[in-house]
Structure formats: C-alpha cells, structure tokens
C-alpha cells in the first residue's frame, strides 16, 4: 500500500517546490518575499536556504521586469516560477503576461515556448482593502494562450503546481491563502499533464449542480454537507482549470440535475460564473433546464476594509445554502 503523508495546502505547495527544485535543474523561482519568513505564508519556508539564493531569488520591487525576466528565461529553456505574493501587484506586470507570454507561441508559429509559471496568490480579508484583495482569475481565463489553474484541494495544490511548471505553455497558478489550513493525506507525487486535465466531481448529487473553483469549492463542499442533512443532494464540480475551460462534465451534470448554481470569489460582470452559465446553457436543450441558472459572486464593488463590510462582501456557505433553497422551491 502507498504510504500517505499529512500535508496542509500550504506545505503541499512547499513540497511541490521542493520536488521541482530537486529534480529539475531548469527550475528556479523569482519574486518578492522569497527570502522572508512571512510573505508567502508557509508555502516556501527556507527554500532559499536549501536550494540557494541563486535559484530562489528575492527581488527589487519590480513586478514588470521580474515577470518579463521569467518569461525570457522560459523561452531560453528554463522552467521558472515567478511568485506574486498578491495578485493585485501583478497589474504592473500585465504586458509580460498578456502581450508576451500568452502570445509568443502563436506569434512565432509554434516555435517559441514560454513555459513560465506565474504563481498569483489571492490574499484577501483582514481589512486590507481594495488593492490587496483582488481575485482576477476571470481576466486570465479571458486570454487565449494562458493556461489558468486554480487548485481547491491539498492534493491539487501540490500536483497542479508541478504540472504547471512542467507544462510548456505559460500557466497562471492561482492559490488562495484562505485555503492554506486545509489538510489531507497525500499519496506520492505523480507528474500530471495539464493539457489533459479535467474538472473533478467532489460529491455526486441529483438535485442540482454546484460549480466552483479554488476557495469557492471549499464553500461548495461545505454547503453540500449541510444540504445533505436536509436530504438535498447537490453535485459539486470543481473546475481546477479555468483556461482552456472544459465544460463537458458540467453539461452532463446539469443535464441530469436540471439546476445550476455557480459560486465564484471574483466579480460578477464578465466573470467566471457567468461564463460557466453561458457555456452550459448553450449546450443544453432548453426543456432540460428546470430553473434559470444562478450565480453567487462578489458584489460588483472593490473590497472594503471595515470588518462589518468585509463580512457582507464575501460569499459564505450560508448564502449558498439559501440560494439552493430558492432554486429548489416549487
């Protein structure tokens, strides 16, 4: 029998870094806070000491050049990971990500492969406010050429980071600090192929379909458990990969349940939740839908600071449960 080891989401990420840095000399990590004990939680502790400061590089406050440097290194055969301790800071690095990394393969006729991994951390709450709380995954899902990964489970936190780094395309790996305390027993590492990754069903159900990714999946799983106690059976589908989006499993599920609720921790307009609804309804005969699909997202407002407003701002398990009640009414 395989021996399984206990991890939390944070240490699972760290173990992926360790695996990559040990096995692949082309891997290096660059970003702000990598020599600090606090910047990225417990996900990179002492990696600089173990692998040296020339492979785990802390940097000046220069998101644009650091990201571009990683893109360039990847074109030259390295497998760099650039770390942004907050996704908000990446707004300085959009050219490197969107104009360069995402386009290079296409523009060069498939000859250039910027296999860079961009680790973007969602780090919200704690009264940090509008510039320190953003979850911009929908933006990156909009950009062809990027792969976007959003692990919800401890296992995916580790294995999808490895798959991202080994992938020859530019990958946005988006983790959420609200997940770091989740624990699980993990089997030994298997290298996965990102191009053949599917969404996963984290709980079978027949009354309705819940779709989500990242931290929202945790809420969905918790809501499913609460609903089970009321004899409501929700199917939970965790997206994992937002770009290219694979919708088949969701379509199948909604064909079965006839009801769809999408939960997303990003903004509503032109966001992921709307995309899931649109992609699903496009593919389903209208008479199989029992109710109009519904989404729970952030309200279309920047993140507030004051704790009372933060409480009103973020989706909760309770909101999901009560939306499900509405959806199942008559």
């Amino acid at each position, binding site marked *: 029998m395989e021996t399984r080891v206990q991890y939390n989401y944070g240490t699972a990420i760290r173990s992926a870094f360790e695996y990559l840095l040990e096995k692949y000399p082309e891997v290096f990590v660059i970003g702000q806070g990598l020599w600090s004990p606090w910047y990225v939680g417990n996900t990179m502790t002492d990696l600089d000491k173990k692998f040296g400061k020339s492979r785990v590089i802390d940097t*000046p406050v220069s998101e644009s050049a650091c990201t571009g440097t990683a893109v360039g290194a990847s074109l030259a055969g390295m497998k760099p990971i650039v770390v942004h301790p907050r996704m908000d800071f990446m707004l300085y690095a959009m050219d490197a990500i969107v104009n360069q990394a995402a386009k290079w393969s296409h523009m060069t006729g498939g000859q250039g492969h910027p296999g860079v991994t961009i680790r973007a951390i969602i780090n919200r709450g*704690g009264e*940090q406010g509008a510039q320190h709380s953003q979850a911009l995954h929908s933006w990156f899902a909009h950009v062809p050429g990027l792969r976007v990964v959003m692990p919800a489970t401890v296992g995916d936190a580790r294995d999808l980071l490895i798959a991202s780094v080994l992938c020859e395309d530019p990958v946005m790996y988006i983790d959420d600090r609200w997940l770091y305390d989740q624990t699980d027993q993990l089997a030994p590492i298997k290298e996965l192929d990102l191009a053949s990754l599917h969404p996963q069903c984290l709980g079978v159900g027949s009354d309705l379909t819940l779709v989500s990714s990242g931290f929202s999946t945790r809420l969905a799983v918790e809501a499913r458990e609460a609903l089970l106690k009321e004899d409501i059976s929700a199917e939970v589908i965790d997206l994992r990969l937002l770009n290219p989006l694979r919708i088949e499993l969701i379509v199948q599920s909604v064909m079965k349940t006839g009801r769809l609720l999408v939960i997303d921790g990003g903004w509503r307009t032109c966001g992921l939740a709307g995309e899931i609804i649109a992609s699903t309804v496009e593919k389903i005969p209208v008479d199989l839908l029992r109710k109009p699909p519904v989404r729970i997202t952030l309200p279309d407002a920047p993140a507030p600071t*004051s704790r009372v407003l933060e409480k009103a701002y973020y989706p909760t398990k309770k909101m999901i449960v009560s939306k499900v009640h509405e959806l199942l009414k008559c």
Partner: protein
Amino acid sequence: MGVDNFDLGALADPTKSHDSIKIDGEDPVFLKSQFRQMLTIRLVEEHLAAMRKEGVIGGPVHLGAGQEAVAVGVSTSLRNTDRIFGAHRSHSHVLAMGGSIHGLFAEVLGRETGLSRGMGGSMHLWDQPRGFYGSVPIVAGTVALATGAGLAAKMSGTDDIGVVYFGDGAIEEGVVHESLNLARMLQVPVLFVIENNLFSSHMHISLRQPHDATSRFAAAHDIRFDTVDGNNVVAVKNAAQRLINHSRSGEGPGFLEAVTYRLYGHVDWREDIDVGVRRSTEDLANWRKRDPIKRLFQGMEEAGIFSLDEQNLCEAEIRKDIDEAWAQALRDPYPSPDTLLDRVYTKQVMG
C-alpha cells in the same frame, strides 16, 4: 561619464549623526511646534502599535516611527491647497498637515467617522481639506498621480504643487522613472519626497540596488534634488523649502531624498530584527540614538529654549488628546453594511 555621489556614505551609517540638531537662527516658537508635531505622530503610532498588538485594530498598520522629521519638515512649506499623496506608511503625512487624530483612529478602526469614512483603514487615507489627496498601499501607486495633481495646479494657473512621499523600494518600480521624466518634460510643479529608510520590507537596499543614493535617478532625469539627514527636521525643512520654492516659481519638479530609518519592522508592532540582512539589534540601537525627536529636544535644551519639564507637559497633553480620540473612535459607528455599493460610482445607476 563621471558621477561622484552615488552613495549615501555617512548619512546611511547608523553610528553617525547622533548629535543634537543645530537650531541656530530658527524661531523657538516654530521649533516647539515642530517638536510637538513629531512627538504627536510618535505617540499616535506607539498607541496604534499597542492596539494592533492587542488585536483591537483588525487591519495592518505600517508605522513610520523614527521618520517623523521628514513629513514634519516638508509640511512646513506646504499649504492645504497643495496636493499631497502618500503610500502605505502615511500616518505622519496626514498628521503633519494637521490631520485629526480622531479621524485617523476612527479610520484605522473602520468607523464611519474616519478620514475615509471607514472605507480605507490605515493604508487608504484621505484628507483633502488639508491638502492630503490620498495614500494607497500599491507601492509607487501614487507617484504618477501626484505628478498629475501638480500638473492640474499648473494648468489652473495657481502656484500650488503636487507632493508625493514614497520609499527606496518604490523607486524600483518603473512607473517612478516614467513619472520623473514626464514631470521634467512638462515642468510639473511636484515634489518627489523619498523617505530612504534603507529597507523595503525585509530587504535592505544593498540587496536591491547597486547604490544607496536614490537621487542618482533625479540627476539622470535632470531634476533638481537634494539629499539630507531625514532625522534632522531643520535640515529637511530647509531643503524642502528650497525645492518647493523652485516648483512654486514655475521651474519644474524637485526631488528630496531624506535618509531615515523606521524603528518598527515593516508592518505592525514587531521590530523585524530576525529578518533580512543588516537589521541587527545593534543597528537599531544606533538608529535610536539618531532619533529625530530626541535630537531636536537636545538641541533645544542645549540652547536653553526647552526643558524636560516642558517636554513632559507636552507629552501629557498629547496623551490626553490621544486617549480621548481613541475612546471616541471606539464609540463611533461602523459603516452600515447596506452602503457597500454606495461609493463604487459617484452616482448610482439611474432608471
């Protein structure tokens, strides 16, 4: 191409500049008010440190204790029609313009009566009636904004100026270099104040830049600049005044590099001794000898215009203000949750 002054030298050496501030020729009344302002800022921040440690404050506070002479010295030449911008470490910038302690406290506590009506916390301050046009925690996020606010003043035909406080870390962001060039080409009246405290969070400047004098970039952009001991309020004041006069009289931007040190760590109450390089207990002890408040007190005491008793009285008065303001802020209401969407736009969508 020879450039001779890329390094701060003694200005960055914590064993230097422990001497009392030379106050010859300065007005005693004025000096006492500078002292009082600096002490107020210090005590306010110490209070915030304690309350954050206790958990009463829910969000991060970036304390500038040790750096008070910069904002106080610069603000001497500012007025409330100027357009001043800060960053994540901006309590001093607001208070030095006469900002309300209660307004700051209420904001840090997320109350409706706060400077930003409870929508900003410590990292997003707004006090436009006093000339403070805002601070935000995106590093370098306000540097171009201040340039624009200065440009606006020029276009409106006033002699008001833009001001932006930023750090030795912020100058590593490309937008700062773009802003310096643009300000110079448009001859914008804006003062770039760099509080060079030698650190960007855990990273000493020697880990981030090949030289520690950031004014080399002002030189490269042909912007008039000065570099001063940022823990000497008189020096800061005089240099700022010269640069501000230059901008007010239509001669374009100025750049003031004030070398200083923060006595707390990067965020909250800790000292960050264990973090990064060159932030040793010894260094910190030395920088404490260079405390801008202590050194001004010594200078005034030696000149016979201020005493320990006066200082104690002053301190007691400030503490009373702080206690009252804090107590009031704790009683103040939070914003109502149903206002969450009210300020996304100036006007709500209409029918």
